[in-house]
Each structure stands twice: as structure tokens, then as C-alpha cells.
């Protein structure tokens, strides 16, 4: 009601005609219309960063693929969200994620409740074609209640965003580039020594994998609770 002047755009996704507000992204419109586009870094309630590239779509007239989460709709767009080519690329991205770190599902705290694991199944990833890197990565269990296991991190930065945008602490951030890239607490200090961390645990709940977990949970015992996020986002927006 407050935004009366928003224009409506029409476009097609996978041949279906859909209507959208001009400020929406292709991903938002696809979701409203129950058209599946895979995502890992995106989480409604947090800002979008286009980090995981799983939501790449084909746009008629564009020689390159575009990330649906950070591409605004436009009048007359012809979007293809599902094709053999996209399936192939998306599986490739998943395989790279699995090859890059040590995602040993069988001994993971979120086995059976993991976004990465379930998406691999949904996208039909049968095995990893790339050579596994098996990097040597640390586990930081210095926090009183939580653990960060870098072996299972996919660098989606959900933790960074929820800590900054919702909790307002900005304890988490990202360090270094390429295969050296890590999420860090404070200035790469042990989490338990962090002075900015409020211990709220939102980062743990939004983490799509077993990278962030609660202490005391064993294999397959942890599942994430994210119901709080839409309410908190709503409250924050209401106060602006």
C-alpha cells in the first residue's frame, strides 16, 4: 500500500508468462511462480551477493549466463531457468564445491539436514568428476557453545550477512582469496576470543552446511532453525 507507484513488468520464464514488480529479481519472480532455481548463498531476509552461482539462468539475447538472484526483471525478458546446459553447469558447480573442501557427509553433524547434501541429490550429482583437493583446514571449537569447521564451509557468507544485517555485530567477515578464502571472526582471532560476538547463534542457524554447528551435537544430530529470520527482518524494516 505504501509503494503505490511500482510498475509491473511481464516476462517469460521457461515459456510461462509471469508478471513481476519492477524492483524484483528473476529469482524472486521464479519462486513466486513455483519455478525451481537452485540456490545456496541466497536466504530470504538477507541481502543477496551472488556468491554460489547456482542460480545462473539463460536470457534470450545474452551470450552469457546471468545469476537470477542479482538480476532485475525487465519488460519482455525471455528467461530459461531450466535446460540441459544449465543442469550441466549447476552440477559442475556442485561438484567443485564438494571437491574444494572435505564434505564427508557420513560423519557430518548435519547429515540428513544439509542444504548442500540435499541439493546435490536434487541436481542429480552422481559423483565428482574433478580431483578432490582434500585441503588441510582447521576446526575452531574455542567458542563456548559453537564450532566452526572450515572443512565444510562453502563460503556462501550467510553467516557474515546475518551477523551484520540482523544481529548488528559484524563478528564474521571474509579473509583472503581463491582457495585460501576463509570466513573469520573478528580479525581472524579464535571465535571464543571474539569481543564483538554476542553468542546469539544466528550464524549457526542460517549456515547451509555443517560448517557452523552447536557443541554437543554428534553425527546427523543437528538441524537448523531458520523460522526467526523473516520475523526479525520484518521488525528491523519496520523501525527504519
Amino acid at each position: 500500500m505504501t509503494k503505490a507507484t511500482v510498475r509491473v513488468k511481464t516476462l517469460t520464464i521457461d515459456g510461462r508468462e509471469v508478471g513481476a514488480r519492477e524492483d524484483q529479481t528473476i529469482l524472486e519472480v521464479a519462486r513466486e511462480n513455483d519455478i525451481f532455481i537452485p540456490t545456496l548463498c541466497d536466504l530470504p531476509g538477507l541481502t543477496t551477493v551472488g556468491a554460489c552461482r547456482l542460480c545462473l539462468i539463460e536470457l534470450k539475447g545474452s551470450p552469457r549466463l546471468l545469476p537470477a538472484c542479482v538480476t532485475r526483471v525487465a519488460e519482455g525478458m525471455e528467461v530459461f531457468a531450466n535446460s540441459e546446459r544449465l543442469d550441466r553447469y549447476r552440477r559442475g558447480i556442485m561438484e567443485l564445491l564438494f571437491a574444494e573442501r572435505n564434505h564427508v557427509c557420513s560423519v557430518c553433524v548435519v547429515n540428513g539436514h544439509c542444504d548442500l547434501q540435499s541439493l546435490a541429490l536434487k541436481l542429480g550429482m552422481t559423483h565428482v568428476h574433478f580431483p578432490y583437493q582434500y585441503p588441510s583446514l582447521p576446526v575452531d571449537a574455542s567458542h563456548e557453545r559453537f564450532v566452526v569447521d572450515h572443512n565444510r564451509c562453502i563460503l556462501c557468507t550467510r553467516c557474515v550477512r546475518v551477523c551484520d544485517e540482523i544481529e548488528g555485530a559484524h563478528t564474521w567477515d571474509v579473509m583472503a582469496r581463491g582457495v585460501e578464502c576463509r570466513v573469520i571472526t573478528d580479525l581472524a582471532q579464535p571465535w571464543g576470543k571474539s569481543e564483538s560476538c554476542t553468542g546469539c547463534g544466528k550464524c549457526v542457524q542460517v549456515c547451509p552446511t555443517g560448517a557452523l554447528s552447536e557443541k554437543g551435537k554428534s553425527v546427523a544430530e543437528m538441524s537448523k532453525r531458520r523460522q526467526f529470520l523473516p520475523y526479525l527482518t520484518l521488525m528491523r524494516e519496520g523501525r527504519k
Partner: protein
Amino acid sequence: MSAPVTPKVRLATVWLDGCSGCHMSLLDTDERLIELAKRVTVVWGPLVDLKEFPAEVDVTLVEGAISSEEDLHRIKMVRARTKLLVSLGDCAVTGNVPAMRNKFGASAVLRRAYLENVTLDPQIPREIIPALLPSVRPVHEAVPVDLFIPGCPPSADLIFSVLSGLLEGKVSNPAAKFG
């Protein structure tokens, strides 16, 4: 009265670096094993008393990752003598738990197991036991694999459905999660 004479499918199962849980899961197909036994001859497996992997095997299920020189030698022989090679379970498909030693290296693991944690006559075995490879790899990084059954272990139902499919000539990867 006489049943149609179809030659039985020659099935082998191989146990490399795994915990035998996948073989246990195969046994967990319970009474359905009797159905399978009517159409399949098990020509090689952990309980088959032969000296050498036989020739002209139709289907081989491989449990476990490639961890030692012996594993590598065996999988190459198995591949050469098998029409359809199936990676059975996460160790074969991904490296899984055996591959968790890769971040430390083989010599560190041997030191830990045979020297640091032993009080009586600590020594690293050099005879009879095959040498470890520097890095544990999934089966398909060593030889081409035709089919992948994920799971730790894959459920008995999953193994049975893939095997029954194969007996009907259906070669397709099952939809099942890792772990």
C-alpha cells in the same frame, strides 16, 4: 515345465578400503538374496575362496576407496575383467572416511598408529601389509566406473533396486544422497 535357460549373471563384489558396511547392507537384503541367487552367480567376494579374480565378470560391486598399492593393483585387474563396474557406497564414490587421512599424509598416519600409540616394540610394518598410497582416492579417479551407488552405507533397498534393475538391463544411477 522346463525353465528358460538364461545364463546366470556373473557377479563379483570387491572389498577395498572400507569398513565392510556396504557388504553388510547387501546382506541386509535378507530373503531377497534368494531371488538374486536364482539369477546370479557370485564368482568373487570376501567369502569366495579363490586365489585370483576370475575373468569375464558381468557386474562387480566395489566397496571402499583406493588406499594402498594393493588396492590399485586389484582395481585395475577387476576393471580389466569386468563388463560393468559399480562403485558401491561413499568410500568408493567419494573417498569418504578413509580419505580423511589425506590432510595428514600416509607417513604421519602410520607413525600415529604404529609408533606413537604403541608401547610394546613399536615398528611400522614393512612386509606382508601393502604399502599405503600417499593419498586415498575414490575408485573413479583410478579406473573408469559405470555406475555409482552413494550412501554410508547404501540402504539394502537401494542396493537391491539397483541390482534388480541391472538384471533387467537397466543401467542408471540411483537417486540417493551421500552420507
